[in-house]
């Protein structure tokens, strides 16, 4: 029995996840040459832009001699870096679970006003580019952020009293904000489909509420919780922008260390070694995840139970606390960002609303960071995103079509794994791979960016198309044909409308991914061709209120661009 929901909620579409099994037997399998022909473009792309760069990293790491390696390891204190990477990821995951699990419970079991909206809002952080999240937390916790501004005006201070940035709590806070929705959705959706009668049966057999949870609900929920935890851990482990911008120089993880070694010390060989370590760790985590999701398909009789109303004052209190708390966590940073981008602070003057930072984006100043007005970054990003979208669909449609129509074999299994691997590879590793593999990468970077982004967008597009394609019932096509539709009409009138949602979701996610991509782009970006996230990063790193303001203004623009796509996806996803 297939226990998966027919339509995946949007964020899980991003994750590497075991697919829903073999194509339906009703499908006539494609003849083998046709299938290979359709799979070929995607395969070539992955070979050139994924496997070859990984191989290049591997080769580069081999050229380092052992003594030098040990020496550099001592100077870079590799042990501490790896240790901290694990530690911050573990801590972030635990806090995320602690806050997310009660929310998942309420979402799974209760009906409350504004439920769909709440669900949509809590999903927003996940699709926000890391750079936006970092900027948002900066406007909350930073020296020019709301908390310090508030304290300064309240206590009449001249200097920001608190240093909240560059701390572990800032990192953990941003990670929680980012990944909370993973717990809410992965656990919440699973919990919602867990038959509440199991718990009721336990209760009538003499178990009190706690015993029923302990013996029945928790054991059944555990794989979902574990897989959510592993996903969160994976994201926290390979987190780049958040650590770089909120952790500051004293907090180094593998990811930021690769970046620093490659770009600041130009030590590509050491960066390559670090990349391999990073790769090994992520493979381990993904392996664990795959094992767990396989567990999730144990023949549970899943059953969508009717949601209960919040009809008791105690449950009402509990739910308001949980729902309100999570909403505050998910909304406050983004609101802080949007508001802060429109506030001007001058010495001894009250705060005033201004659009100066936005206006500044269109000016070309001599002493500016870039050679062109900052708004060109928006154009650059949109161009790259459109190119990525086109490339991802040009490769993704034939690939998904072939995979959906071919009987599963060892080759298709390998192909799907290969296709999904870039999702599990850290962004900085992907960028580093391009740098190492293509000697001219630096010069032709603007042309390479769409290919780099497609590495991440392609699996997302295919993953969204596959269930839709596999779910196309041949009977519908035959019915249309019998009613007089030509093959072209069948495609336009039957297939396409049925696939429209999958195409829309995949496209919106691919677009958002490209717009917000930071980790990999950071290694290839050139000053004269900044994308939005790169421009924001540069502005944030500079002193001065105007630079800070422009960073925020650009962040808000990036946030809105991504939000457009998300709204399109969320509009009719299941509640």
């Amino acid at each position, binding site marked *: 029995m297939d226990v998966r929901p027919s339509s995946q909620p949007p964020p899980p579409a991003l994750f590497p996840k075991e697919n829903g099994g073999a194509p339906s037997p009703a499908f006539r399998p494609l003849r083998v040459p046709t299938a290979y022909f359709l799979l070929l473009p995607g395969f070539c792309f992955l070979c050139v832009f994924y496997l070859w760069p990984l191989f290049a990293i591997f080769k580069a790491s081999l050229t380092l001699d052992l003594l030098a390696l040990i020496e550099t390891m001592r100077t870079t204190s590799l042990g501490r870096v790896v240790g901290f990477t694990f530690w911050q990821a573990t801590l972030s995951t635990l806090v995320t679970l602690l806050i997310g699990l009660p929310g998942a419970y309420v979402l799974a079991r209760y009906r409350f006003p504004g439920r769909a909206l709440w669900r949509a809002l809590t999903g927003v952080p996940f699709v926000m580019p890391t750079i936006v999240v970092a900027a948002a937390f900066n406007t909350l916790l930073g020296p020019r952020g709301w908390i310090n501004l508030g304290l300064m005006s309240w206590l009449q201070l001249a200097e920001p009293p608190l240093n909240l940035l560059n701390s572990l709590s800032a990192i953990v806070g941003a990670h929680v904000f980012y990944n909370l929705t993973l717990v809410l959705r992965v656990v919440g959706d699973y919990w919602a489909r867990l038959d509440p*009668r*199991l718990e009721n049966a336990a*209760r*009538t*057999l*003499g178990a009190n509420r706690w015993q029923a949870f302990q013996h*029945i609900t928790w054991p059944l929920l555990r794989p979902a919780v574990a897989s959510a935890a592993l996903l969160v851990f994976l994201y926290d482990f390979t987190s780049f922008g958040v650590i770089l911008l909120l952790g500051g120089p004293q907090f180094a993880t593998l990811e930021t260390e690769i970046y620093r070694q490659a770009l600041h010390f130009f030590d590509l060989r050491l960066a390559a070694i670090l990349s391999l370590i990073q790769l090994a760790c992520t493979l381990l985590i993904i392996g664990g995840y795959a094992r767990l999701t396989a567990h999730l398909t144990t023949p549970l009789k899943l059953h969508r139970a009717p949601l209960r109303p919040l009809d008791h004052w105690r449950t009402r209190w509990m739910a308001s606390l949980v729902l309100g708390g999570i909403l505050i966590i998910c909304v406050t940073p983004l609101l802080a960002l949007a508001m802060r981008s429109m506030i001007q602070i001058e010495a001894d003057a009250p705060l005033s609303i201004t659009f100066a930072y936005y206006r500044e984006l269109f000016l070309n100043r001599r002493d500016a960071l870039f050679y062109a007005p900052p708004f060109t970054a928006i154009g650059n990003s949109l161009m790259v995103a459109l190119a990525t979208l086109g490339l991802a669909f040009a490769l993704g449609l034939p690939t998904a079509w072939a995979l959906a129509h071919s009987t599963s074999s060892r080759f298709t299994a390998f192909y799907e794994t290969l296709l999904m691997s870039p999702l599990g590879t850290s962004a900085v590793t992907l960028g580093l791979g391009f740098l190492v593999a293509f000697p001219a990468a630096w010069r032709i970077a603007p042309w390479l960016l769409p290919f780099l982004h497609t590495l991440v967008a392609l699996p997302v597009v295919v993953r969204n198309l596959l269930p839709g394609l596999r779910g196309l019932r041949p009977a519908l096509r035959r019915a249309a044909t019998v009613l007089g539709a030509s093959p072209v009409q069948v495609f336009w009138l039957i297939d396409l409308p049925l696939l429209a949602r999958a195409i829309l979701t995949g496209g919106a996610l691919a677009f958002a991914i490209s717009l917000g991509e930071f980790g990999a782009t950071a290694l290839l970006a050139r000053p004269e061709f900044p994308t939005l996230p790169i421009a924001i990063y540069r502005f944030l790193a500079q002193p001065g209120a105007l630079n800070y303001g422009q960073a925020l203004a650009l962040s808000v623009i990036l946030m809105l661009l991504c939000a457009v796509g998300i709204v399109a996806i969320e509009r009719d996803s299941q509640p």
Partner: protein
Amino acid sequence: MTLHLASLSKIYLTQRAVEAFSLTLAPGETLCLLGPSGCGKSTLLNLIAGLETPDAGTISWEGQDLARVPAHRRGFSLMFQDYALFPHRNVFENVAFGLQMQGQARAEIATTVGRVLQWVKLMGFEGRDVNTLSGGEAQRVALARALAPRPRLLLLDEPLGALDRVLREELLDDLRALLRTNPDGARQTTLYVTHDQQEAFALADRIGVMRAGRLLQVATPEELYAHPTSPFVARFLGLTNFVEATPLSALAYQTPFGVIQLTASSSSAPRSPLLLIHPDAARLAGQLNPLTVRVVARSFRGSLVRLTVQPVAGPELVFDFSPQTLPNVGEQCVLYLDPERLTLVENESDPFNIANSI
């Protein structure tokens, strides 16, 4: 008296799921609540089990009010429609669950589980994964799990509803026998909920017919079938021959097709009576209550033949005959109605409306 329900009500948002429901259960009795889906049967079971709280009325056990007793302390077992077997526990662990909750010792649990599994004829199934059981096996595991902790009351929610017809017939007899001698050899006090009248007739000591959250009639199966008190109950039992009747004397009633004679046992003289004619009331020979009809349809049903006939006036009637020489479609004949198989029903509202609402 064991279970006693007094004017129990439960309202969901605006819909009354259970309304002014009163019922008393005798020890060792199997009572079936029969009603169409959505009539509040499951809600009633949840209320009794303590999984939901009533908006009004009381539930008591041997005189003790259960309002403040939580579900896990009531000592009632509830068996669900598709069994709700714990998918992460094997057969033994499922059956042992209730005993573990009682804090029994390991050895004691093993003995009890063994005995109960033997009772449902599932010896050797202890280690089986519950996800691999057939429908009938799962049903018996669920029954074993429900009865292992020796509940004071067993609540069954459509326990055969998920099974196909052949298996259902087979398990019906098993279930009947099992409820008559539970693992302790006693009659299990049981409240059974179903929408299937065959099930109810086969299992119940008494049957209660429910409609829209209300209890319409409680009686033994024989009494219920012979003398339903309302057209709804009659139609739900598959009795469809109704005609309006006006009293002429105590035992004679005017109907669209003439005067009909009743016997004393069939008439309790309702205020606005409807005459219910059982499908087995018609005879091909006799003296009383002659009725000239034309045969409209004839269908063979194995052990009986069903004729649909049109009297000279009044509605079409349906009669069952044992296979014999019967008039053909289109032929006229005279049927004689056996007064023993006629009964008067209170016409609470338009019978055709009721027919539509079944």
